[in-house]
């Protein structure tokens, strides 16, 4: 039963990541929708722990790549090495051949290295020396980045931002959660002790269930209104792309599944909207201060 599975997953994660219900749900819905996740926050608020916990509970193989400014694409993808016995080149696989990758501090790497992730994220395959290699399925990237005003960062280009289904922030825990953190067990030990709640087959079933959540034409109308507003209102440098529209729908479906709705509701769209579109919409300078997502939601009547 998908709902039971989801509940178990959430319980397992929330046991480790305390007091972060909404970000955890968003992260899970992002992975269930088959999208990549970008976590943007200060160091030490639990980005890595969240990624690791997700991998463990979903029963995925996990690799962490710490991005640095001197990193090369080969460090991620791997290299082709000549094998004397077979007289052929064989691939020495890099860390990318993993189901769930934590690309830590992705904006510390140079654009060249960042772009090595592009093909992998979109096509679920990589190319080395004209040879194409499929990546394991399911394949997720959870990238973390420091706020871009920190020293020594290369901000991700828009094309790459667009490939992340969601961008979430964790933020500081509230007082109670912080107390639990301080008094409770070591997080690393907790993660280490976690056992998989589902296997990859069950994950496939869940992902299927996401795409099967009913979408009515009224809801499509609503999403189209949102897209049209971002394009026509003049508040943004440019509007949302069709890919962003699809991403919004998938994310809303996943959210609906987690919220145990039989169908996608406008509330589901509104719940994921800030995290799906905020990193895709370049604001005009004069609107930069306003809470534009709330304005956008308030401006659009539900059909």
């Amino acid at each position, binding site marked *: 039963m998908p709902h039971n599975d989801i509940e178990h997953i959430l319980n397992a994660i929330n046991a480790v990541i305390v007091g972060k219900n909404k970000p955890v749900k968003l992260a899970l819905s992002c992975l269930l929708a088959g999208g990549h996740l970008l976590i943007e926050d200060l160091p030490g608020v639990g980005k890595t722990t969240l990624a690791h916990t997700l991998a463990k509970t979903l029963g995925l193989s996990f690799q962490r790549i710490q991005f640095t400014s001197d990193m090369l694409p080969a460090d991620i993808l791997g290299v082709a090495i000549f094998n004397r016995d077979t007289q052929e080149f064989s691939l020495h696989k890099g860390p990318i051949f993993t189901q769930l990758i934590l690309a830590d501090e992705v904006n510390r790497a140079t654009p060249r290295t960042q772009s090595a992730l592009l093909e992998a994220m979109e096509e679920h395959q990589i190319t080395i020396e004209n040879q194409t290699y499929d990546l394991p399925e399911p394949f997720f990237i959870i990238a973390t980045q420091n706020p871009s005003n920190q020293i020594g960062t290369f901000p991700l280009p828009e094309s790459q931002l667009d490939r992340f289904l969601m961008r979430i922030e964790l933020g500081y825990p509230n007082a109670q959660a912080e107390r639990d953190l301080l008094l409770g067990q070591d997080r690393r030990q907790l993660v280490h002790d976690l056992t998989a709640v589902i296997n990859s087959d069950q994950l496939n079933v869940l992902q299927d269930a996401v795409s099967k959540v*009913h979408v*009515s034409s*009224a*809801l499509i109308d609503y999403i189209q209104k949102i897209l049209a507003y971002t394009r026509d209102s003049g508040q943004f440098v440019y509007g949302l792309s069709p890919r962003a529209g699809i991403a919004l729908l998938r994310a809303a479906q996943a959210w609906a599944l987690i919220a145990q709705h*039989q*169908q*996608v*509701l*406008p*509330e589901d769209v*509104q719940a994921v909207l800030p995290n799906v579109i905020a990193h895709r919409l370049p604001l005009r300078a004069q609107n930069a201060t306003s809470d534009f997502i709330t304005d956008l*939601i*308030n*401006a*659009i*009547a*539900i*059909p």
Partner: protein
Amino acid sequence: MAGLSLGALPHFIYQPIWVAIIFIAMIFWRIMAIRHFWPLPTKQISSFKLIHLAIAGIAFVLLFISYGNLIGRDAGVALLTVMLSLKVVEIRNHRDYYISCFLGYFLVVTNFFYSQNIPTALLMFIVVIIMTASLISLNDSKKSLSNKGLIKLASSMLLQAIPLMLLLFVLFPRIAGPLWGLPQDAHSGKSGIDDSMTLGKISQLILSDEIAFRVRFKDQIPAQSQLYWRGPVLWQTDGITWTELNKRHVMSHRPDFTTSGNEYAYTITLEPHNKRWLFALDFPSEPPLTPASHYTYDGQLRSIKPINQRQQIRLRSYSQFSLNPKQDDVINNALQLPDKLHPRTRQLAQTWQQQSSQPTELINKALAYFNQNDFYYTLTPPVLTGDTIDRFLFESRRGFCEHYAASFTVLMRAAGVPARIVTGYLGGEINPVDGFLVVRQRDAHAWVEVWLEDQGWIRIDPTSAVSPQRIDQGISTIMPEGFNTPLLMASSRQLIDLWHTIRTNWDALDNAWNQWILAYGPELQKEVLQKLGMTKPDWQTMALWLAMGFVLVSLLISFYLFYHRPRYDPVSQLYSTFCKKAARAGCVRPKQQGPLDFARALKQGYPHLSQQIDHITELYINLHFGKQTVSMSDLRFAIKQFKFTPSN
């Protein structure tokens, strides 16, 4: 404020300089207040308040000095302009802004008291757009529109108003004659044919490029040499000046005439000249219906009232005519000559008379005299002093139409043939763009009529004996090359042509404006409405049509709105009745709130109704967003049953 300034700008031309000074000073004060925080007059008594009041007082005094009172167009508009500028400094709150804006609209209207030509209309249209934009900006409390956006919105609003404007323009009952007899357009004192002629006077006209009138011929246009536009007839002379014969009999009696030959029907659009006479192609068969007018005995058409606004005149003329063929008392006036003047001219005429007593032969002799001696047609003749006729005929021999007409008349009278001078215009230029014949002041002309027994008054143009070109091809051939062209352009042929094209096109546009917009008075309205099928265009019918037009326009708008109305499916409609019920109970659903969130909000206010609210929400979600597995009647029933009862 830009709108106000633009709107007031044309007024500066018509008003004393101090109005402009005060206006500019006040605007400057305001701008400095905005930019550099200059102090403005306050509500309480303060020095700035006193300055403001002082300026107002000075303005009043100046107004009284300039106009004597505050009644009347000029004084009223000046008062409005000054007061508006004082108000600009005094703007404190929203209401003041509104007042200034609406007064600005009024200022726009007052501009049309003075001028109603195309540039004014365009300028005022721009002003109205700016005013409307400021009104929008006043109501745009969030400042969500940029200046460009404001102008765009204002323009589109005004464009949407155009159908209504057209409807009102065509159908609103017209009052005969504009209010207050405006706009005079300051036409008084403009050059034009006079009721007297002194040698050398028409020459000033000939240098004037102003349009005297425009003519639209119904069918064919007569040859250039036949385009004699008949104006005042001059009889009496004191040797220098020629004047009309101002006798009651002449002024009020219809002449005895018959017409024959080609018939020409045409409409003249006469520019105002503040005189009574009309111009008509020689010779009109009957006086026009409008303006009310009559014939004089010497064949002029005279309006009852002076022509001080542009006037359309329908006329019908014939190429041949015989005028007053019978001998009468008046003819003696055509033999009058000042005593003891023109001795040499009289001598010459008398020698001719001795050779032949036939008037036709005398005429031919005089024409031949002009033709065979070294007379020249020139627009810049030497200034004549003393006995002008004698000196012209025997010494200078350089002149234009009026010299020839005057000396010919003197010759004829001296020889005993009755003669008189007719002034008017000759020729005109056809504008190729709209086909109107444009007659300008420079086409002014003078010719002679002599009376022959049994034939009546015959037109003789002595100028033709000297310069046939003037008659056949119009005045422009006589003009020096490049005349009427801005100096810089005169150098290039192509530029001259280009200038000519621009001029003819502008003339045509201006004419169309005059013909259809400004001339749209009661008569034209009547005609247009009759063409539209209104059988009896009185004001009741017009009001009816106007009402019908309004209904039609609003019907069209409502059809449009109906067609583009937001489509609600039945489920949404049911849900919206539920929402309305909730709204009546004081729980309004924001348009962006989803059904689940709304249900949650409702349940907070009405926890005892949770079950029903959940039920309705569930049904609605299933029907609207879900797979529609439940029936709509369930939802209808549930909503019908539902009541917001307060909990006990």
